[in-house]
């Protein structure tokens, strides 16, 4: 009965964003500036690893954001949690002298607790996650400022400073910065979890139809809470990396990161309505944003044109994925089948 399924190809939702990345990648090559030796600057190994490093924080945050959004929520507090975690990292290493492991654990724990509060208040308080995480966005930053006494804290090595192992976050291996490995590993791990585990399945289910999920016996409130915990923890991880790369814990950092992360998720084909989306797509979305910034940056284009171009390219990239080139034959009718996609 299960004959080779004709629609299989088109069901690979992530193909479209990956396709989008390829297009942008090719465009980047075409429009790459050349250096004095005449090489394409864009294609230099160093530049490519730079891009990966530059997107690694956003990429890690976007992983958690993908879970939250697929489950039908949204998390605006990721940038503040990043700042909080970076601040705790700097203070833990420098002022409180907690050592590497305990500091990391503390930063992650606090971030996870912030995420847990997001989830718990959303679930049990029955308040839209937009509001809850907006409040957390404010409160977490306040807390970070409180810890830092409204200052930023630089991290240094040597006596009285941070343990030297902390330098790992600004070290490269085989020419690839360490944060890139974390980014890739995180994406792969949670990709597996999303695709292959019960939990992953439940995340889709509650985002697709919460009511049906309740009746099917899922513990919807808990599952939703876990997604926020994950988003919090990963923002915390990104915060540690942030501190490690900039050698500073700054409670004012991470402003606007939530928009970048949500943008990556949505460009990656995940619907803000919840219920569908992929981490492959998010990965592609993160890369699209990174490539775009890189090529515009390499050209040193003035801010005004850069912004206008960026706006146009984002829409064009999504349009090519979605409408222009129809890779997905089901698109047009799926509208008629109870799928009211959020516009």
């Amino acid at each position, binding site marked *: 009965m299960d004959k080779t399924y004709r629609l299989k190809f088109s069901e690979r939702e992530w193909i479209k964003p990956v396709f989008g990345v390829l297009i942008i990648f090719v465009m980047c090559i075409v429009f790459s500036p050349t250096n*004095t030796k005449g090489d394409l600057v864009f294609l230099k190994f160093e530049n490519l690893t730079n891009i990966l490093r*530059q997107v690694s924080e956003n990429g890690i945050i976007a992983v958690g954001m993908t879970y939250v959004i697929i489950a039908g929520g949204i998390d605006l507090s990721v940038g503040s949690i990043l700042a909080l975690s970076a601040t705790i990292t700097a203070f833990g290493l420098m002022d409180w002298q907690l050592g590497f492991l305990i500091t990391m654990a503390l930063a992650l724990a606090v971030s996870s607790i912030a995420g847990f509060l997001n989830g718990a208040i959303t679930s049990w308080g029955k308040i839209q996650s937009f509001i809850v995480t907006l409040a957390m966005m404010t409160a977490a930053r306040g807390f970070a400022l409180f810890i830092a006494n409204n*200052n930023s804290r630089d991290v*240094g090595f040597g006596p009285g400073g941070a343990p030297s192992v902390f330098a790992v976050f600004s070290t490269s291996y085989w020419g690839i910065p360490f944060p890139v490995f974390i980014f890739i590993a995180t994406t792969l791990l949670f990709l597996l979890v999303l695709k292959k585990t019960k939990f992953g399945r439940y995340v889709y289910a509650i985002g697709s139809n919460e009511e049906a999920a309740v009746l099917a016996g899922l513990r919807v409130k808990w599952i939703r809470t876990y997604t926020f915990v994950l988003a919090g923890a990963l923002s915390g991880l990104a915060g540690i990396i942030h501190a490690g790369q*900039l*050698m500073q814990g700054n409670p004012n950092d991470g402003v606007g990161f939530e928009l970048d992360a949500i943008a990556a998720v949505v460009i990656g084909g995940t619907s803000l309505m919840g219920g569908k989306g992929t981490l492959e797509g998010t990965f592609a979305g993160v890369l699209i944003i990174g490539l775009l*910034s890189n090529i515009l940056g390499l050209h*040193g284009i003035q*801010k005004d044109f850069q912004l206008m171009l960026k706006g146009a390219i984002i829409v064009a990239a999504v349009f090519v994925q979605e409408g222009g080139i129809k890779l997905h034959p089901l698109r047009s009718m799926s509208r008629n089948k109870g799928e009211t996609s959020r516009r």
Partner: protein
Amino acid sequence: GKKNNAAAPKYIIGFSQCNSAEPWREAMNKQIESEAAKHPEIKLLVSDAQQSNARQVSDVENFIVRGVNLLMISPNEAKPLTGVVEKAYDAGIPVIVIDRKILSDKYTCFIGANNELIGKEAGEYAAKLLHGKGRVVEIWGLKGSTPAIERHDGFMEGIKNYPGIKIIYSQDGAWLREKGRSIMENALQRFDKIDLVFGQNDPMAIGAYLAAKDVGRAKDMYFIGIDGLPGPGGGIQAVIDGKLNATFIYPTGGKIAVQTALKILKGEKVPKDITLSSVSINPQDAKEYLSGEK
């Protein structure tokens, strides 16, 4: 932290800061707060406009309604704040304007340094380091903001006489270390030879240094910043650590502002304009300066 002294404060001072998210401004806040804490007769209210003119207008309005005895303001932009500062002044509240002037003389005292002059000093210093020839990367503060424009203009003025000095790349780093870093990464890819990086503030210059260090090119170029804040994360320490080749102290004027405020409240006469002078900090004198500060 706020400590409430037993003696009830006699005066309320409202301080409207335009943005506390920059280290330089935070340093100003700290100076003002610690100076104010020495004087139990004043109660200090601080507001942060988070880089928004509109919010700062509201903040000042709130202070007026609250009935502060003196207003200190570091305006986000001149024109938008002029009206409300005039309103306070007309209501009989003495006003100390810090760092950036308003477009009116309805204020009691202005305290500030000159961005353009500092930019010029930085430009001249760069010319000296480069012996009149070289390729420069400039990392801007927020495009369109007055200090960014003034520091840029000053810098250009400083290198005006050296046609061999070329700005090969400039981008908006919005005063952020993080942006300074990624802008520099792109610049490093793009150009094999960069001789000097001018960051319009220290955090961006340090960010650029970190980027160059990661690819082993930090030794090939000079890094210049502005602000010269004291403390472990500040520009002076960065000069001592060899991250920056020079920085230029852009004084916050916080301490003087509080002292001036007290004079005004006590009815003493104060000068209408107090211009703070800048000091250039290079590796030779940084250590002395830092210990002298303490």
